[in-house]
């Protein structure tokens, strides 16, 4: 049977399938459907220094082969996570990464420092790419100097695996990727959602309360795949690919484009068991192609 284990720096994953922040809650929401411990890792909901109520309803619009969201980082704040949620999930036997966001560099740093103390959290995913908050978030990830500044500052205080989640809403994603790699990122994950909008022609109003929101789902996959391919050629740290993955074939495309692991997001809403199906599908692909290690797929794209 083919080996599914992968390494992201010091982080060992039993398989390359993780879940994307904001689509998997804290894992508990899916525990009736699947064995959470069978996953390579989960990235829990975006966490900020202070509790946030998020944006007003409506926050979601269904679009062709995808959806827009404008949740706006609703969360209980890092202390709420540590006191209320962490005790409930710390015994999951998978890699639990916390997605960390903030409005200022100081907020990112303080949140990361607190999470650094949690034994059962082997890494964070630094969210410099949320399109749905007025301050911070994507503002950090769309300018190279600010992406470097926030990664540098968090790197100084955060001792475990530092994954940085990149925004696709930029002219050249490889410049940002190289910038955060140079600032001490252990891996990069991409893509966060693409900025989009939807209009109700009957009311002539935007569907979302925030007018614009983040697009996800199969409709973004070709863009995400292209960016993963570009970034994997530009940096040496592992790349975690995501964007519209809804099958094992989709996941394998991202691996071939250069990803070492993948995250599944929006597809969890339609099939809460999709992660397990993708893991099994990757295993079957290896067997069918007489390959003995999933790592052989990473960057194995044949060109020319």
């Amino acid at each position: 049977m083919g080996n599914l284990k992968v390494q992201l720096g010091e982080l060992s994953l039993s398989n390359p399938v993780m879940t994307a922040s904001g689509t998997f809650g804290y894992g508990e929401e899916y525990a009736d459907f699947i064995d959470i411990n069978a996953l390579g890792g989960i990235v829990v909901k975006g966490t900020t220094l202070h509790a946030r109520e998020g944006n007003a309803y409506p926050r979601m619009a269904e679009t062709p082969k995808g959806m827009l969201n404008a949740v706006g980082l609703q969360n209980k704040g890092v202390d709420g996570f540590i006191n209320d949620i962490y005790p409930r999930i710390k015994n999951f036997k998978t890699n639990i990464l916390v997605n960390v966001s903030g409005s200022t560099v100081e907020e990112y740093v303080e949140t990361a420092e607190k999470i650094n103390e949690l034994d059962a959290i082997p890494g964070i995913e630094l969210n410099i790419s949320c399109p749905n908050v007025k301050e911070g978030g994507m503002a950090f990830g769309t300018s190279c100097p600010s992406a470097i500044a926030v990664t540098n500052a968090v790197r100084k205080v955060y001792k475990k695996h530092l994954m940085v989640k990149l925004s696709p809403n930029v002219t050249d994603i490889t410049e940002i990727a190289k910038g955060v790699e140079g600032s001490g990122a252990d891996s990069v994950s991409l893509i966060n959602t693409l900025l989009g909008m939807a209009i109700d022609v009957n009311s002539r109003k935007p569907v979302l309360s925030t007018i614009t929101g983040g697009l996800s789902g199969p409709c973004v996959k070709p863009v995400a795949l292209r960016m993963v391919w570009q970034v994997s050629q530009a940096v040496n740290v592992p790349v975690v690919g995501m964007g519209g993955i809804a099958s094992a074939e989709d996941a394998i495309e991202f691996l071939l484009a250069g990803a070492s692991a993948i995250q599944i997001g929006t597809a969890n809403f339609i099939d809460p068991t999709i992660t397990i199906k993708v893991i099994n599908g990757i295993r079957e692909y290896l067997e069918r192609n007489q390959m003995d290690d999933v790592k052989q797929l990473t960057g194995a794209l044949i060109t020319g």
Partner: protein
Amino acid sequence: MKHITDFTIITNQRETDEFVVLTLQHPGELPSMVPGQFAEVRVDGAENAFLRRPLSIHDVDYSNNTIKLLIQEVGEGTRVLAKLKSGDQLNLVYPLGTGYSLPKSNRVLLVGGGCGVAPLLFLGRHFVENGIRPKFLIGGRTAATLIRLDAYEQLGDVYVTTEDGSAGHKGFVIHHPIMKTETPEFDHIYTCGPDAMMKVLAKYAGSRGITCQVSLENHMACGFGACLCCVTPTVDGHKCTCVDGPVFDSKYLKWEI
């Protein structure tokens, strides 16, 4: 416990131009469900219906392990569901959400508007099984939009309003004579339907010391608390309609009424 299960369509009964009732066979013993809970239904074969569709559990028959879903054709997803035939499979994630809670007295009024009548049949049956005879107040635009009145009549007293007066009392549900009596004949209102209707009922209940449980229909992506898209403002801040609701005590909601 939430389940993900393929049901088999037994019958697709057309009720009106807009509405059908699907009867679904569960492959084994049905899990226990609470009236007001819902299912997230996967729509296969629709070009533009990407997400599952949240639909109230309309009725449950534990002895035959069947459930009913009331479908109103409003978009591509529901149009595809309304075309399902006997023998077709339908994938459900269920039972989801927090349903209605039982009353402290036996005097209950169940108020439905439009497709909001869907959960009230299962709720009414639940009351009858607990020795409570419910009153139903059902509102529609016209006589042709009233659905399955006979099924509700088997469980309790049914009062009707239509906007054009083509059936029952002319007007909205709040205009029905049973809402006009000085001392109401009920202590609890259970309602599902348009927000405007439910807000009027919440105001009515609030001013008379009556409890009012309302069922919201906010747009959802997941249906089980993972995406945080379907929130509604409450006295405790944003709460997910899919997990903390869809049924809420109207006083818990931050409604401008």
